């Protein structure tokens, strides 16, 4: 490649400082080269000795174990391993799978029932206004609502009201289950009892 700034480079080289080696450097180098040449000749004349077998065995024992060289696995072997793994996974799934039923049958039938109006009426009875009145009272932060005993009663009432609502939801619009309705009536009786106790505190 042609140097584009040749004159500049030449000028810079000329301006570089010049150094002389210290005295005796060349003599030392010459003496070292002569010694190497002399040893090389002597080494050729040294006798040769074979070490005892035990020496190599000891050395071999101290050497770190060589890692086995990975064998080249052919394609068919890889397929076989993959198939074995797949079979093992399938076996595990087979043992742990949700078992299917031994046998199952299913049918759908339509019939008619007459709704028990008396039960349904009990379920769908409107909430007494007095309960809402207590709610409004406590919402307006009436002093009685802050009394510990009243709070306990109110907490109990709230629990029962939640239970009543759960039952209502479970029964739905067409629920006429006598047992659940009886439970509903018992809850309503307990709520009424609580309401009376709360009223007496006002």
């Amino acid at each position: 490649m042609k140097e584009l700034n040749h004159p500049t480079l030449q000028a810079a080289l000329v301006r570089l400082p010049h150094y002389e080696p210290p005295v005796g450097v060349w003599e030392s180098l010459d003496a070292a080269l002569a010694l190497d040449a002399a040893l090389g000749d002597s080494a050729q004349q040294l006798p040769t000795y074979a070490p005892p077998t035990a020496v190599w065995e000891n050395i071999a024992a101290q050497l770190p174990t060589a890692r086995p060289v990975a064998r080249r696995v052919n394609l068919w072997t890889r397929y076989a391993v993959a198939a074995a793994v797949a079979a093992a996974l399938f076996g595990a799934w087979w043992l742990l799978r949700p078992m299917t039923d031994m046998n199952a049958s299913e049918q759908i039938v339509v019939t008619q029932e007459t709704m028990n109006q008396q039960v349904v009426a009990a379920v769908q009875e409107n909430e007494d206004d007095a309960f809402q009145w207590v709610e409004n009272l406590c919402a307006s932060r009436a002093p009685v609502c802050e009394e510990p005993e009243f709070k306990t009663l109110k907490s109990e009432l709230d629990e029962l009201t939640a239970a009543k609502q759960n039952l209502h939801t479970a029964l739905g619009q067409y629920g006429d289950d006598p047992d659940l309705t009886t439970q509903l009536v018992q809850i309503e009786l307990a709520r009424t009892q609580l309401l009376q106790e709360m009223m007496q505190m006002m």
Partner: protein
Amino acid sequence: MKNILFLFVLFFAAGGMAAQSTLQVVTKTVQKSIAWKSGYTVEINCEKAEIDVEAIPAGNNTVTVKADLTARHPQLDSAKYDLAAWKFVTSTVGKKIYIRAYIGLPSGRSLPNSNLKAKITVRVPMECPVTLTNKFGKARLEHLNGAVRLNGEFCAFTLVDLQGGVQVESQYGNVDGRQLSGQVELQTKRSAVALSDLNGNCNVHSEYGAISVAAGAQTGNLYIQSNKGDVIVETGSLPRHNINLFATYGEVKVPSKPHFETGTSGNTKQASLQQGTGRPQISVETTFGKITVQ
């Protein structure tokens, strides 16, 4: 003319009311049999279900389930549509056989308008332990030798001839038990409890519920703790047990014979019958409840 019109109106109104009180009931019946091995347990998890668990003769290693899933609505189409909300699943995972009946709705679908109910009959080998959870319904278990664990909310339990111990947690669901052996543990809230023919130890912890227990000759130690509920213990005229009764803010009523030592300590009324060491104990503690021994 007006009379005829009035009759027409009356006729259609009556027809409408009749239609309202008649429900179309669509029932899907599913029957399944599931292989059972010794060491397997059955776990039943349902809602709005009336569940019967019965024993099958020894040697029959099969659990059978029959589920009648119903949707009730005045309109047949609505009942049919809502029936699809019922999900009934049985599966065996490890050593547990699961039986589930629940209302499963895809996201975005509104709650069914129909009244949904399930009647499920499960027949298990006698020694099979059973775990049952149910909401809004009832459950009856009888003639089982395996351990029974029950959890219910608004679910009445009827337990007959259970020999492998019983553990019950119930809210708003009465518990009626007869011929119960092994350890009986009840934890109830707003539930009435009635127990008889107990053949082992029994602990009852109750809140807001009446308790009645018949302690016979075979009954072991009986411990009842009741908060805001009355307790009746029937021992007969010759009680086998030593008895200790404590009613805080309540009353204690005992028979004149045998003679009970009675007393009061603060707000607690006490009564005690000690007939010698080595006898099983009946211990009843109530708060805001009356204790009656008869």
